[in-house]
């Protein structure tokens, strides 16, 4: 049984990297003056010679990572999600994805739960940006165990990967002992027949709570965790759509271009099904404590439950 521990996925990332360092001597970790915050500092301590601080120059960091990859390294180029995917977008596109190099782009501090730093640091566009790049795999893990497994999967996968991580500590709910992570395969956390909630990243734990609230109201909701947004698990989504009818997606991202749109694309092509997207509604965030912000933007269990209930009445 999983012990209930609270850990930010960025921290699990730092730990996982330093554990994998020995098994995979090709791993090189790059950061842009944020090693303390992104937790790559954990790797740096253990393997100082395989850690490269690139300074505050994210575009160059992506290019250096690309060059390292052409020489057989497995670079993890890390920064806040905003800077890794936004500022350095074109470098990720042209120097990493176009030549399909084995670089892992890691964005920590994704979403509004960055909190007090405010809108300039709250990345709500990274999934949209990274998922539009040919050949890019996009992973958004939900808790400690899933992050550890995702980092290993990223190392073992040959090709560019974007790993989306969070600053906020989140409860671990995936079972530590028998958790199996497979790229591109969603996880059904709870079966149900009335409706399916599809969540990713930090929102999976919130959705889990929402399912419990709905249960008290006699609603039997299915919960699916989509940790790999690209390639997405079409089979699992279509099965849920067929079996439960309505679907709700929940993500800490702009509702434009993220998980909801990815799910909608699958449905509209094969099995048009009513879908409601919960996310940030095409606006910028602002400063505030993470938990309060999530609540204000409706990214909390009570709102997920409420929207679901309303949706079922329609």
């Amino acid at each position, binding site marked *: 049984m999983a012990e209930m521990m609270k850990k930010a996925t960025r921290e699990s990332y730092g730990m996982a990297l330093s554990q994998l360092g020995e098994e995979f001597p090709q791993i090189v970790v790059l950061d842009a003056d944020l090693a303390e915050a992104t937790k790559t500092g954990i790797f740096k301590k253990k393997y100082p010679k395989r850690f490269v601080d690139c300074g505050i120059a994210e575009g160059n960091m992506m290019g250096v990572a690309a060059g390292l990859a*052409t020489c057989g390294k497995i670079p993890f180029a890390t920064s806040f999600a905003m800077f890794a995917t936004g500022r350095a977008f074109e470098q990720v596109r042209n120097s990493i994805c176009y030549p399909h190099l084995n670089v892992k782009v890691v964005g920590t501090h994704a979403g509004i739960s960055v909190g007090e730093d405010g809108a300039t640091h709250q990345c709500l566009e990274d999934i949209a940006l990274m998922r539009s790049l040919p050949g890019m795999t996009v992973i958004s893990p939900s808790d400690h165990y899933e992050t550890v497994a995702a980092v290993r999967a990223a190392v073992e996968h040959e090709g560019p990967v974007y790993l989306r991580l969070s600053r906020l500590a989140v409860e671990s709910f995936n079972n530590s002992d028998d958790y199996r992570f497979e790229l591109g395969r969603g996880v059904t956390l709870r079966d149900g027949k009335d409706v399916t909630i599809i969540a990713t990243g930090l929102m999976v734990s919130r959705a889990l709570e929402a399912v419990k609230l709905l249960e008290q109201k006699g609603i039997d909701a299915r919960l699916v965790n989509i940790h790999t947004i690209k390639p997405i698990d079409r089979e699992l989504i279509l099965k849920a759509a067929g079996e439960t009818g309505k679907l709700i997606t929940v993500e800490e991202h702009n509702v434009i271009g993220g998980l909801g749109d990815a799910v909608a694309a699958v449905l509209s092509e094969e099995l048009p099904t009513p879908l409601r997207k919960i996310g940030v509604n095409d606006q910028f965030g602002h400063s505030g404590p993470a938990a309060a912000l999530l609540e204000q933007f409706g990214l909390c269990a009570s709102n997920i439950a409420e929207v679901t209930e309303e949706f079922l009445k329609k």
Partner: protein
Amino acid sequence: MKTELKRKLEIAACKIRMGAVEGVYRAKSGHPGGSLSAAELFAYLYFKELRVDPNHPKEPGRDRFVLSKGHTCPGLYAALALKGYFPETELKKLRQIGAMLQGHPDMKGTPGVDMSTGSLGQGVSAACGMALAGKMDGKDYRVYALLGDGELEEGQVWEASMFAGHHELDNLCLVIDINGLQIDGPTAEVGGPEPVDEKFRAFGFDVQVIDGHSFDEIEKAFEHAKTVKGKPSAILAKTIKGRGVSYMENVAGWHGKAPSDEEYEIAMRELKQTLAGLEAE
């Protein structure tokens, strides 16, 4: 430089010019100006300097070359074909559908291309990564990157230069093709990257300024660069854009334009004459 070697390189440079003009003419698009200004640099790199083997283009211990000013790939492709990486007939298919030779270098599709480039400034960073990997692995290969002087206006060049200086990448050599022109006109008027030598020195480089069409000076500079320890090298090569084709020389308009049938005939006639002169010597 020994006369025999110089003759060989001059012939190679002329053939590179012919291949570049041929490709751009057939494609009806492409970048002749900066391909011609760098012809001696391509020739020196591929026929004197780089430890590479066209039969084993991915050999891990090879020297690397990154064409950071990727638009001038007609010149690079002509050099690679001449070196034997692929048949010269490929040059005639430049930029066509299904062609091996893309409008900008594609490392996945073209043997001998070490990095995909075309977005200015990005190649320098990749070259830094290659040089860093060499240091980490204790390998003795060297990494060369060719940039344009207009390209120096791109901020990433200076991010990368700071990185190279800071990490003491003495296995990295940047060659800047200073032909003084970019798309919108003279580089001095458009973006003004000068003084380039002082900038690179300030970023921790060993800097040399040479005539980029003189093999004597090119050889001296490349040989010196290999002896520099603890810092990267920058070779600032002063050149003439469009060099070798009379009507293209020093005309900004020939940056990215294909010659007409008539212009092609004139260019080829001039280059063939140059070649005949060199071969007769």
